[in-house]
């Protein structure tokens, strides 16, 4: 067995086989029991490598998924049957794609399988099927037929669609002659020639032509194409082509052509010019009327922009109107166009927005309105002439006649009678005369006047006439009477004129004059008018009082007569200057102790002699009032300054008072603090007693200060009630009380009896108690103390005084007397709250009075006070 050539060949061929299987570009599997071998192509097909699918069941599971058991069963069945037929199966590749595979197998123990991928082929087949369907469908929809012509045998075949287009069926003989039969007789020869030339020149056959369908005799348009195929010898053998039914398109084209021609004719022949314009003004099209009327050729006009036709003065208007067209779609307006020769043509433009070849354009119809404008102008001129003419004739003339005592009757009447009265000549003739139309209030007078006319007499009358429309007009009538041709016949010839306007003016003038007269009657200003001789013509009523004579004695007189001496002459000189210079003059004059301001000016009216007028204002009161205001202002300023000073003083006092009060409160408190410290450290009982006594004293002091402050403050706020007060009585009472407090002292108290004042009793009690107790206090060291209360007469009423012969004080320090808590004496000499005199001063001042003192050290003191006007300020201005 070893080295047997057959064995070698068998081994070699098996290796070759394996090599072959591995490398062929067809997916192949070898299955032996559960074992599996798959070649490289199979790996590529499924995407699974040999290592991943080592066994056949694994491979089945991978490529068939849940179906793998069924597929195994099916495989075993097929294997048992000897794999009679290839099978199409669907496998799932590693990348998820589904593929259709033809599965062919052979073998029993070892099964050899070929997997043939059909997917791409099936898809191509499907695409071809789809394309064929589409083509058929396209031919049907596009009325497209296909034919093939075999030139050698003179036979053509055609698609069903082509047969349908030509109206033939399979029975129709399909030869060149029969095609010629189908072609419309009108173009049969042409088509034959075209075919022959295409054939000869190897050109495409490409022609639109008409046919007649044999089935129904209907004419149709077709579009035929064809390509010739030639044999090796250059002879044409075959022609393949298409036929398309284009009847509908041809019909549309024909109709369009017809309508375009019609439109063009209408467009060109229209009597109005028509422009089709781009929205920027460029011309798209114009009709013949347009360019001929403007004097251009069509090409010239089309090269222009509409703006070149608009005269500059219309540019703004046109631009506004075109905006309106764009906004609303249409506008009609008058404008003008400039012809080529520069002349201007007035036009009416009817412009609308139009859809043209998919965009918006202006479609304008332009009407030449030269004639209309000229007619309008003529009409205006004629109306004007008519109006002027008719305004000239404000009269009418008439002739009347009467017989015996009968009424006048109108014989003829002519002129502006209807315009004036509103009645026509016929209407007046029918009424006999116009007397019935005369105003009720004037009718009898007018009638009587006319009837009283004797021959050769004439008359002018003015009366009111009620017009036909009910309005009233004024008529001036002038007529003369003549004897007629008949006996007893009187004729009346007259003219009548509408004088309503004059009457209205007269009436207005009267009204103005009435108003003016009223003004002159009541004017507080002197008003005067003088004529050219400088005599008064009209003066206001108030001159009567000034000159002491009535108005009618002033009018007509010269200034020299009206005003005395130099003053009269001065006025005349001024007047002459005004008249001479012709300019107004303003001057201040003194007359009768009063001051006047006068403005005089010339008046010149056409047709009147020169005159002048003027007004005069009495400034005396004004000047006095101004002076009074100045005086009053000065007084007020002084008053304000006085009060400001008073207020400042009060503020200062208040500040000083606060300072003082704080000091007076602090002092006893500091003392109490000090004594407390001493008390804490002092052991000696006797001294402790003394300190306790000083402590009590200090707190009493504090109490006293608080009470005094409250008193002072109450004094300022308490309401003042002045009554009759017996001051002597109060002093006596207070003296007794003081004496009772200090019974050891011998003080002589002298009280002048019956000193009565109008004052507030409460405040007087406080005031006198303080003064008296001060006097008691400061006489302590006097040898024989004496206190006197009395009164004397001063310049501003009674002066009251309290006099003592005590310690007195240095007048140098008298300013400090009345400030609260100020002392002139050392405390230990004359103890006190230091607020007594401040209180007295406040009480006195509340009454509007004042307090002062006289003293010398060691010679006693006298305190004086008054009780003047209570709380009054001066209100009279000082002279």
């Amino acid at each position, binding site marked *: 067995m070893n080295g047997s050539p057959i064995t070698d060949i068998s081994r070699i061929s098996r290796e070759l086989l394996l090599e072959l299987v591995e490398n062929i570009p067809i997916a192949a599997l070898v299955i032996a029991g559960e074992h599996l071998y798959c070649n490289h192509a199979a790996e590529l097909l499924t995407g699974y490598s040999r290592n991943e699918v080592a066994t056949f069941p694994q491979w089945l599971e991978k490529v068939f998924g849940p179906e793998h058991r069924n597929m195994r069963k099916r495989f075993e069945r097929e294997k048992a049957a000897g794999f009679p037929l290839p099978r199409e199966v669907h496998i799932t590749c590693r990348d998820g794609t589904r593929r259709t595979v033809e599965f062919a197998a052979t073998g029993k123990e070892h099964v050899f399988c070929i997997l043939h991928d059909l997917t791409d082929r099936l898809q191509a087949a499907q695409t071809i099927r789809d394309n064929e369907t589409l083509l058929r469908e396209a031919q049907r929809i596009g009325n497209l037929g296909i034919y093939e012509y075999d030139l050698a045998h003179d036979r053509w075949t055609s698609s069903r669609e082509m047969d349908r287009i030509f109206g033939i069926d399979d029975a129709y003989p399909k030869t060149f002659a029969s095609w010629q039969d189908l072609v419309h007789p009108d173009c049969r020869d042409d088509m034959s020639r075209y075919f022959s030339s295409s054939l000869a020149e190897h050109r495409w056959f490409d022609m639109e032509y008409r046919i007649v369908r044999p089935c129904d005799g209907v004419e149709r348009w077709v579009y035929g194409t064809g390509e010739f195929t030639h044999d090796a010898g250059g002879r044409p053998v075959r022609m393949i082509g298409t036929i398309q039914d284009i009847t509908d398109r041809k019909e549309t084209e024909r109709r369009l052509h017809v309508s375009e021609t019609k439109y063009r004719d209408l467009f060109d022949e229209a009597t109005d010019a028509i422009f089709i314009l781009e929205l920027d003004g460029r011309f798209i099209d114009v009709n013949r009327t347009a360019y001929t009327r403007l004097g251009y050729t069509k090409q010239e006009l089309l090269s222009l922009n509409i703006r070149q036709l608009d005269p500059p003065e219309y540019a703004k208007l046109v631009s506004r109107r075109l905006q309106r067209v764009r906004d609303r779609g249409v506008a009609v307006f008058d404008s003008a166009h400039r012809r080529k020769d520069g002349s201007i043509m007035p036009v009416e433009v009817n412009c609308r927005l139009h859809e043209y070849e998919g965009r918006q354009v202006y479609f304008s119809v332009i009407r030449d309105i030269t004639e209309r404008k000229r007619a309008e102008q003529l009409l205006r001129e004629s109306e004007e002439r008519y109006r002027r003419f008719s305004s000239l004739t404000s009269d009418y003339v008439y002739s009347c006649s009467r017989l015996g005592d009968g009424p006048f009757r109108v014989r003829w009447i002519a002129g502006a009678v209807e315009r004036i009265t509103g009645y026509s000549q016929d209407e007046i003739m029918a009424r006999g005369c116009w007397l019935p139309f005369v105003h009720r209030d004037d009718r009898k007078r007018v009638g009587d006047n006319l009837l009283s006319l004797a021959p050769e007499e004439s008359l002018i009358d003015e009366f009111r006439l009620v017009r036909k429309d009910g309005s009233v007009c004024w008529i001036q009538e002038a007529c003369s009477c003549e004897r007629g041709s008949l006996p007893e016949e009187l004729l009346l010839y007259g003219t009548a004129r509408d004088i309503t306007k004059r009457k209205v003016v007269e009436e207005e003038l009267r009204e103005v004059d009435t108003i003016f007269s009223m003004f002159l009657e009541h004017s507080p200003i002197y008003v005067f008018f003088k004529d050219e001789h400088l005599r008064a013509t009209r003066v206001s009523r108030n001159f009567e009082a000034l000159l002491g004579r009535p108005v009618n004695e002033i009018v007509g007189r010269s200034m020299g007569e009206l005003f005395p001496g130099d003053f009269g002459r001065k006025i005349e000189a001024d007047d002459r200057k005004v008249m001479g210079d012709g300019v107004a003059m303003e001057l201040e004059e003194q007359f009768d102790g009063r001051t006047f301001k006068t403005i005089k000016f010339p008046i010149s009216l056409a047709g009147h002699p020169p005159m002048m007028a003027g007004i005069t204002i009495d400034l005396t009161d004004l000047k006095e009032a101004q002076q009074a205001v100045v005086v009053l202002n000065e007084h007020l300023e002084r008053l304000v300054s006085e009060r400001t000073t008073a207020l400042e003083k009060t503020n200062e006092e208040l500040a000083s008072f606060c*300072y003082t009060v*704080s*000091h007076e409160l*602090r*002092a006893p408190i*500091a*003392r109490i*603090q*000090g*004594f407390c*410290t*001493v008390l804490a450290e002092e052991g000696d009982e006797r001294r402790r007693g003394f300190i306790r006594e*000083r402590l009590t*004293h*200090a707190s009493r002091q504090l109490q006293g200060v608080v009470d005094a402050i409250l008193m002072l403050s109450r004094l300022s706020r308490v309401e003042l009630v002045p009554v009759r007060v017996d001051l002597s009585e109060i002093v006596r009472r207070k003296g007794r009380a003081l004496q009772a407090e200090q019974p050891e002292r011998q003080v002589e108290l002298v009280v002048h009896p019956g000193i009565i004042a109008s004052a507030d009793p409460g405040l007087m009690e406080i005031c006198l108690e303080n003064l008296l107790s001060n006097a008691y206090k400061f006489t302590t060291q006097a040898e024989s103390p004496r206190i006197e209360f009395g009164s004397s007469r001063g310049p501003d009423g009674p002066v009251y005084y309290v006099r003592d012969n005590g310690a007195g004080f*240095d007048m140098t*320090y008298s300013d400090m007397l009345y400030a609260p*808590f100020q*002392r*002139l*004496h*050392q*405390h*230990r000499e004359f103890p006190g709250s230091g607020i007594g005199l401040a209180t007295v001063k406040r009480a006195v001042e509340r009454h509007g009075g004042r307090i002062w003192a006289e003293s010398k050290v060691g010679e006693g003191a006298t305190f004086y006070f008054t009780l003047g006007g209570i709380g009054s300020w001066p209100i009279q201005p000082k002279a």
Partner: protein
Amino acid sequence: MNSFRVLLVEDNPDDEFLAVWTLKKEGDVSLKVARDGREALDLLRSSGEPLPDLVILDLRLPKIDGIEVLRRIREEETTRRLPVLVLTSSEDRGDKEICRDYGILAFLSKPLRRDDLRRAITAVSNETRDEVC
């Protein structure tokens, strides 16, 4: 060493008592009391008397008030450099500023406290020693 000379200018007897009591506690103090501004100025001018080492001055005084007294002290050549301690019930800022402008040792509120007084005496003594040196 001579005793420390103090001139107390005070019109109220209780305040005088308290100030004197506090001064006495400080030991060897030779004390004079003026009871109004005029008396104080007279005492300072009298040629026979040596000037005090310290003036304790109340501001509210009869006849001539404290600020005026201070002004005149500073005016006078002989008293220009005299140490003055203002002792008052007032705490008016205006007064305080005026006094400071004239030059004072301190502006104290009543009652006089011992430590305030001691500080003033120390300050005066140091000044004096400086001058001696």
